[in-house]
């Protein structure tokens, strides 16, 4: 039964009809120009007297909608005063806004407000810190079409989900289908739903890096808005100076929440949606890989559950909000699955030719989510290849591995070239962080196998023991798997089992144990750090030894799965069922128990847009140009040499137009509020002549103005040609892959038709 046939039913037509009707209304709402509400007035704050929550506009009447709020002001301080909106009459969650900090070089705010209930009592308030001068002026509230784009998106999401359910219902009625597949499907749905519970609220759980990753999402959104693609430098970050975060920390998956932002949703909702999407992907990919390894759907389901509810994943997702690391967890099983197939499948089989695909997707995914995890993966792959060196040099296997590696390389070429370009040619702060030691951040053995985790608050546990620490480790259940597998190995049980799964489990046991040791505080990281600069730099970049446990968890899940597989294959059904019970009980008592604590005890954050966060937070600032003083950066600071006069200027995203005159007899300069990463170019708009740009004070863009220059200069960031070529290479590669897939599919269909004809 084809998908179209499955969708041919009355209720689907009704659902789509309703959606079209709503869409029609939404489109009208989107097309119609938004209303503008203007309020006039001035408010003078007395210098030196702090005022908290002074109402400057009262009883503002507005219908539901999403608005841009523009308050005119004049101040000589930055980040000291805040304006925001409040309304005590709308329901909780009916008004979403964080307000905006006031900056000395800006003249008006431009923040967004989501109002889901009509009001007559909206108030504009200002928090004045008492420092410097502050005068507020007129207020403009401009209606946007974001409410309608949100409704449109939600409508179609619901319709797609409903239609899928209807289609599944029809398919089930017509074909019946296998009960095992249904059990598996609903099992996976349960895992995904339960694992997403902490994201199903109108807030984000606080996490160490949450602010930084929310800024990344905002950066992608701003970049897309300004027409940049792919995003290389987030334009609004660092008070409009631009931060080349995307060059180093690939944001492929973050385009999804960024698009939700463009559709009008708050950054909080977009992030929660992203977490849910990552969870669903993790559940699905883990099931696909583990079921593929063990050739058993139920074991695949159980392993997927163990993996999704693993302490490491919960730690990365909810304690650290480490977007890169928990996103990388989607792809790690794919690499293992690809390698397993490459080394165990019959090299003459037809399916063997496709084995490179999971390796490629896995590696490409890892490179584009978290480079450090990718490095660890490469290190582990080398170990596996060394263990199986004989198999590596079998022609077909070698080809598959090479194809997988090259595939990942070309799929990530668009990202790797700019990354290497800046990494080699820019003097970045990341090159100077080798002083950081990591051993003190290692775990105790008791932490590794802890089961009943709670929402602790301590990260660096070794100074204070493990009391009240963050949940970190692989968990008791995987530890039990490790121990039982060892006992069987010790007792000579595996000598009699000649299956590739056990071979994989043995390697997994060794590597899993090794990674656990690497994560412990007793591992002499500090000693290795002291050997030389290369070691120091490598070890510093690891930052947390607990990072090794991501792969440790993958390996231990394989070990546990292999035990279940053994019980099932050796017809010890009772033990298999007991193992199943243990897995389910442990998921509830460890993973879900921990998430329950998290939801209850952990602080919540409600941030709706970047204005609510400020524009300056760059976490460790690894990708800043060395020597940049971020505290000296502010919006719109233009400086120039003595003989230059700036008549006017206009700033945009990573670009600026400056009308200026050089009265001097020598080359003079003008410095713009843009961080000078390689790629900035300046042109005289009249003659088209290119002007020289260099790093100025605090590494901002400095444009050299020739003697007697008079006119407008246009400065903008232009991706270098080799970056553009790298993008072309990746596009071509994807087109080739698409063509191969289509060709193979057509070939397969033809073969099936031919076979059917032969049978007839």
């Amino acid at each position, binding site marked *: 039964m084809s998908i179209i046939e499955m969708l041919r039913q009355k209720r689907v037509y009704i659902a789509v009809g309703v959606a079209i009707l709503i869409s029609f209304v939404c489109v009208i709402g989107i097309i119609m120009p938004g209303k503008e509400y203007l309020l006039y007035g001035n408010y003078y704050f007395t210098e030196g007297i702090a005022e908290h929550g002074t109402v400057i506009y009262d009883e503002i009447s507005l219908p539901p909608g999403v608005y841009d709020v523009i308050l005119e002001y004049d101040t000589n301080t930055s980040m000291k005063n805040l304006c925001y909106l409040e309304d005590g009459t709308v329901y909780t969650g009916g008004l979403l806004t964080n307000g905006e900090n006031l900056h000395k070089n800006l003249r008006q705010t431009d923040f967004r407000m989501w109002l889901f209930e009509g009001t007559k009592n909206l108030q504009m308030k200002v928090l004045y810190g008492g420092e410097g001068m502050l005068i507020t002026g007129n207020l403009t509230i401009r209606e946007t079409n974001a409410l309608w784009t949100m409704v449109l998106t939600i409508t179609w999401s619901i319709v797609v989900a409903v239609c899928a359910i209807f289609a599944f219902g029809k398919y089930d009625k017509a074909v019946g289908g296998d009960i095992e597949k249904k059990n598996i499907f609903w099992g996976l749905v349960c895992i995904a739903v339960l694992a997403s519970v902490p994201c199903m609220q109108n807030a984000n759980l606080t996490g160490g890096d949450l602010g930084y990753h929310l800024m990344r999402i905002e950066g992608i959104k701003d970049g897309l808005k300004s027409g940049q693609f792919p995003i290389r430098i987030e334009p609004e970050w660092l008070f409009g100076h631009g931060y080349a975060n995307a060059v180093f920390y690939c944001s492929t998956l973050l385009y999804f929440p960024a698009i939700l932002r463009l559709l009008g949703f708050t950054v909080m909702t977009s992030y929660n949606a992203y977490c849910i999407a990552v969870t669903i992907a993790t559940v699905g990919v883990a099931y696909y890989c583990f079921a593929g390894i063990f050739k058993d759907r139920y074991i695949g389901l159980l392993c997927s559950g163990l993996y999704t509810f693993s302490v490491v994943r919960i730690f990365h997702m909810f304690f650290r909000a480490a977007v890169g690391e928990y996103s990388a967890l989607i792809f790690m099983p794919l690499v293992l699955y690809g390698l397993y197939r490459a080394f165990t499948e019959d090299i003459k089989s037809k399916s063997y030719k496709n084995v490179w695909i999971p390796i490629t997707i896995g590696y490409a995914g890892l490179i584009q989510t978290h480079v450090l995890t990718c490095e660890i993966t490469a290190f582990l792959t080398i170990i596996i290849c060394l263990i199986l060196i004989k198999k590596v040099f079998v022609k077909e296997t070698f080809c598959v591995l090479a194809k997988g590696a090259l595939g990942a390389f070309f799929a990530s070429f668009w990202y790797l070239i700019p990354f290497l370009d800046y990494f080699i040619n820019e003097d970045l702060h990341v090159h100077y962080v080798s002083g950081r030691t990591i*051993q003190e951040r290692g775990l105790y053995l008791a932490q590794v196998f802890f089961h009943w985790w709670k929402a602790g608050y301590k990260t660096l546990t070794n100074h204070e023991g493990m*009391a009240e620490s963050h949940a970190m480790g692989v968990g008791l259940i995987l530890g039990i798997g490790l121990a039982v597998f060892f006992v069987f190995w010790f007792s000579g049980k595996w000598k009699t089992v000649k299956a590739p799964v056990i071979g994989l489990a043995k390697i997994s046991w060794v590597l899993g144990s090794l990674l656990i040791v690497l994560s412990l505080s007793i591992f002499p990281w500090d000693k290795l750090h002291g050997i030389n600069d290369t070691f120091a730099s490598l070890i510093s970049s690891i930052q947390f030894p607990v990072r090794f446990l991501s792969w440790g968890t993958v390996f231990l899940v394989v070990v546990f799965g292999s035990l279940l597989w053994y019980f099932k294959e050796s017809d010890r059904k009772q033990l298999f069922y007991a193992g199943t019970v243990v897995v389910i009980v442990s998921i509830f008592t460890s993973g879900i128990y921990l998430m329950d604590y998290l939801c209850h005890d952990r602080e919540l954050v409600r941030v709706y847009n970047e204005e609510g966060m400020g524009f300056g937070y760059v976490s460790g600032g690894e990708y800043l140009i060395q020597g940049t003083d971020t505290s000296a950066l502010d919006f719109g600071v233009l400086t120039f040499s003595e003989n230059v006069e700036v008549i006017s200027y206009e700033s945009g995203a990573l670009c600026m137009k400056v009308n200026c005159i050089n009265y001097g007899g020598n080359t003079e300069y003008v410095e713009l509020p843009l961080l000078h990463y390689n790629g900035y170019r300046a042109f005289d708009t009249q003659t088209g002549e290119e002007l020289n740009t260099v790093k100025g004070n605090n590494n901002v863009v400095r444009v050299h103005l020739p003697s007697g220059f008079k006119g407008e200069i246009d400065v903008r960031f232009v991706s270098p040609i080799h970056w553009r070529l790298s993008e072309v290479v990746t596009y071509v590669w994807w087109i080739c892959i698409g063509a191969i897939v289509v060709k193979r599919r057509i070939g397969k269909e033809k073969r099936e038709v031919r076979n059917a004809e032969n049978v007839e």
Partner: protein
Amino acid sequence: MWNKYKILFGIEIIVLFFLLLGCFQKEKLIWADADIVLTEENILYKGTEFSVKPGVYQIRVSASDAVLGQVWCSVKANSSPFRAFRCNETVLTNGSVFLESEIYVVGSTDGLYAECSTDGQAVRIENIEIYRTNLGNRMGVFLFVLLSAGLNYMLYFRERILLQSISKEKQFAFWSLSACIIITLFPYMTDYIGYAPQVMKLCERIKQLSENQTVVWAVEDLLLALPVLFRKIGFSLMVSYKMYIFVITAATTVVTYYLLFWCFKKETAALLGTVVYILAPQRIMSVYERGPIGVMLLNREFGEGAAWQSGNVWCILLICIKTLVVVGFYLWLEKKADPKIKWWIVFCLVLVFVGEAVYCVNNIAYTYAPVWIYS
């Protein structure tokens, strides 16, 4: 067995020989200073810097006259690799003239220095000396003998398994009881000890018994002979106590298993009973909260009958009764129930007991404040 592993045994003997040689090396003075006067105006003394290699060192401080107030002495480092050296600040208290304390160095450390301070009372310190001792070698020998014995036993055990001369029930019992011991010792899989007043008192007593020759041994101190012995070998106070708890737990496990086996003549019943007894949260709490000889200590601290009043004895009795009830239930199931149903009931029971114990040890590890006691 001998033929198969003779190379291993040979290596073990050779290594042991060389380790033993190290035990006879003499103490070596690493650093010293003399004639230091601490006054009300000058309450802090900081010695010159010195470097150390891995080993066990001792700081020895002697005052010219009996100290009136308190003098704190310790060895510190300007910067050192994480936990490369471990020692506690020790105190010369009212009336004493000599202090000795161990410094455990696990990684080469530079920039160490001795520091002394007073509470304001004038003190004249005759000598401060840092010695490299042979305690590390003694510990090495002890640990090597222990590990070799463990390894050899495991190899012997494996040989017997492969020769099928050990029944599956016995193998199962061995691994299960080992797992129970490991679960019980979970809170001590750290480099510190969880703070509990009674445990601290026990450590203090071990310290007194091992360091002060004049202390009179009471009857209830007999069990503490073991940690005192470990301390004499050279282990830190904390490690000695942890090893003692390990021995006590292992002994309790073995004794319980054999006693139950002797009573019921059934391996599975004995195993189930031992699991219930060893993993009983009341027992675990006794170990980590009250100290393993809590009953005796309570009697000594608060007089005869204190243990009964505090409920300790009732707790122990309750664990015994609980064990017997579970074993009795199991034996009844053996006779009456369908084997499959019996299997599942026992499985669920074990799951509950293990879960309860894991919760208990996790809670202890997660909530008890850490204390690092080396000497």
